[in-house]
């Protein structure tokens, strides 16, 4: 069975609430069938608006949304057949777990025994068998969450939307739920559009991530690429930790460029700089810089340790390097640990291919 790569399609969608400000600008996004795609971004970046437009609670100001090739902009929410998990679960408080799950089936006029079968299947999917007669208020947050997921899946929708479904859970539960949702997605192959502002959640769960900012998709790619190869400084900053140097391109040739900082010159990988004299922000992941490297690296500088913070599995070291006092290094706590002290001068090196020269901040 071939999967439709444009199962959900946002075609040049604009959205404005007040006619003055566009909260979503010219959105072009294709979601493949069976894909787990996450819309990630800070609050107010337009990601929830996109989800609401897909669910049918908001209408696009411009452009069309297509589901399996059909324009759905004029179809009301209850006819779209899209499952949705809400931020605060939105379980019906006056109905039991069974009735909550049976609701979408009853409105679709399913037979009683078929409802029973489907509810049972959905509950076993989230391992909540035996909770049928409980009221939502009698369940813990995690259990309510699972009921909400089961309810969104019970009527076999082609797409399931999740609007920050794990936001209200504590950290441990959130992590285990992330895996659970991921496994459910893998086992039933439904298309999931997931909205979150938590980048680690996005990285853990998704096939692809669309990073939103300012009503636009900044980058759409798989988690590894998003982390390793951010295309602009917003994405680099938003996903994971990041060390930056602001400067000007002094020389550019092939896959290397020289960036002139206020007091030094570093080599970097030109991503969005084209010409000599361009302003740029060089981004470098903390774990790509090494202390006293054994091999030869094309960037080698020395800096003074400002702060050492013990984190259990690793140690964070803040260094004043090339007049950037916020330069962070992560040192794994291995057996051959280095003696690190504040005010110590150390040598730090990194490869120019890891230092990405992006658009200026």
């Amino acid at each position, binding site marked *: 069975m071939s999967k439709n790569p444009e199962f959900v399609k946002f075609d040049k969608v604009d959205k404005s609430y007040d006619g003055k400000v566009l909260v979503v600008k010219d959105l072009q996004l294709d979601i493949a069938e069976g894909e787990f795609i996450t819309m990630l971004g800070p609050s107010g970046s337009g990601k929830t608006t996109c989800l609401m437009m897909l*669910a*049918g*609670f908001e209408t696009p100001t411009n452009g069309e949304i297509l589901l399996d090739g059909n324009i759905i902009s004029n179809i*009301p*929410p*209850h*006819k*779209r*057949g*899209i*499952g*949705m998990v*809400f*931020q*605060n679960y*939105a*379980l*019906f*408080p*006056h109905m039991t777990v069974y009735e909550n799950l049976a*609701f*979408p089936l009853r*409105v*679709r006029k399913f037979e009683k025994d078929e409802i029973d079968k489907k509810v049972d299947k959905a509950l076993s999917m989230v391992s909540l068998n035996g909770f049928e007669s409980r009221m939502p208020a009698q369940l813990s947050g995690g259990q309510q969450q699972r009921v909400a997921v089961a*309810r*969104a899946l019970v*009527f076999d929708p082609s797409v399931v*939307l999740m609007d920050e479904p794990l936001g209200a859970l504590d950290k441990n539960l959130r992590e285990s739920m992330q895996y659970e949702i991921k496994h459910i997605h893998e086992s039933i192959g439904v298309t999931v559009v997931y909205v979150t502002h938590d980048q680690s959640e996005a990285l853990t769960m998704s096939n692809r991530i669309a990073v939103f900012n300012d009503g636009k998709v900044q980058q759409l790619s798989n988690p590894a690429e998003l982390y390793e190869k951010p295309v602009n400084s917003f994405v680099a900053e938003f996903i994971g930790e990041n060390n930056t140097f602001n400067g000007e391109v002094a020389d550019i040739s092939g896959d290397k460029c020289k960036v002139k900082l206020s007091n030094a010159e570093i080599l970097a990988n030109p991503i969005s700089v084209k010409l000599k004299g361009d302003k740029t922000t060089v981004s470098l992941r903390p774990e790509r810089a090494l202390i006293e490297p054994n091999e030869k690296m094309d960037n080698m500088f020395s800096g003074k340790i400002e702060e050492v913070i013990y984190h259990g599995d690793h140690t964070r070291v803040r260094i004043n390097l090339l007049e950037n006092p916020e330069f962070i290094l992560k040192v794994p706590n291995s057996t051959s640990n280095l003696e690190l002290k504040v005010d110590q001068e150390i040598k730090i090196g990194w490869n120019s291919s890891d230092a990405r020269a992006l658009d200026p901040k």
Partner: protein
Amino acid sequence: MSSETQKILTTDGVPLEVSLKKAEKRNKIKAFLLVAPLLLFLLITYIFPIADMFTRSIDDRMVTNMLPKTFKSMEKWDGKELPSEEIFRSFYEDYKVLAEKKEHGKLGQRLNKEKNGFNSILKRLFRKIKRNNFDESIDIKEQITEIHRHFSNVDYWRAIKRTAPPYTMNKYLKGMDMFLDEDGKIAQVDEDRRIHRILWLRTLEIALFVTIFCFLMGYPIAHLLATLPMKYSNLLMICVLLPFWTSLLVRTASWMILLQQQGLVNDFFVMIGLVSDDNRPEMMYNKVGTYVAMTQILLPFMVLPLYSVMKTISPSLMRAGKSLGGTPFTAFWKIYFPLTIPGIGAGCLLVFILAIGYYITPALVGGASGTLISNQIAYHMKTTLDWSFASAMGLMLLTGVLVVYWIYNKLVGVDNIKLG
């Protein structure tokens, strides 16, 4: 490891348990002292008056106190045959005392209510006593029965015996258009004299319809209030509350201005050609006036509890209902509406109970066909001065309210009420 549980002591050697209890007790006393003024206030203004009303409504000691000897000797009389000489004699003695104190008239009136004609034969007895025509040394029974043949009629003596208990349910029976007949059985008054039952039914009917009207009008308003953005909902809230802050009398009077035959509403109807000028409908001094004015006045009592419940219903529930495939109507009917039931219950109960005892508005705009039971109570308190009857009806009203409350509790559950 020792399995023995040791008694935990505080630093001054007192067991912790004891000193905790002490502290708790002190807190309880403090809390009680705080509510004591309110408790006292309630006792004086609420419990005592109700208790007083209750004793007043069943109090029938007047005859009991007037004829102490008679009732004592009547204790063993079975009421089948004419009483014995002993009973006649004690009645004669009691009556003589009353005649000397000039209180015999009241007895005559009271007994005449039990049995027609009593007053006149007692007056004859009084005249005979006045003239000192009794020879106390011989048979009193014979001398009394000589006065009038009714004195040898056992029915009259039974009427006296019926007034013996110090308490009576007569007032309550009267409130339901019933009375105790001569055999002590409950009987209905003649059909053309049954005014109270009509009033009770009308009170229930008006209260019920006012509740329904308030619900039909209040539900959308409350929904709007709960869902509109803050700046509009505040304005609307003031519109709802504004009549609430206006005096009841002023509001009722303004309805009179609006609804009278030459009033603004009728003028408007004539102007748009709905009715002709010489055929203006009467909208006041009948049920229509009572309905309109009471619905408007009681509307806030419906809107406020509904609003407070609707405010807590997350809008995402309706969205969830729709996204799961429910039409907007299904989502409303299966999800939103059931969640507002506590508010509906509270609002309806509040409006119904207030409406059932409403007084000023029906008195002013109700006319003859729009008055309620409370107007009748007021009439007896102010005009006939039959306070015990007014008390009895007041208590019947109170009982009615409690019954409504009980039924409501059975149907919806009082725990489900949410007033705010």
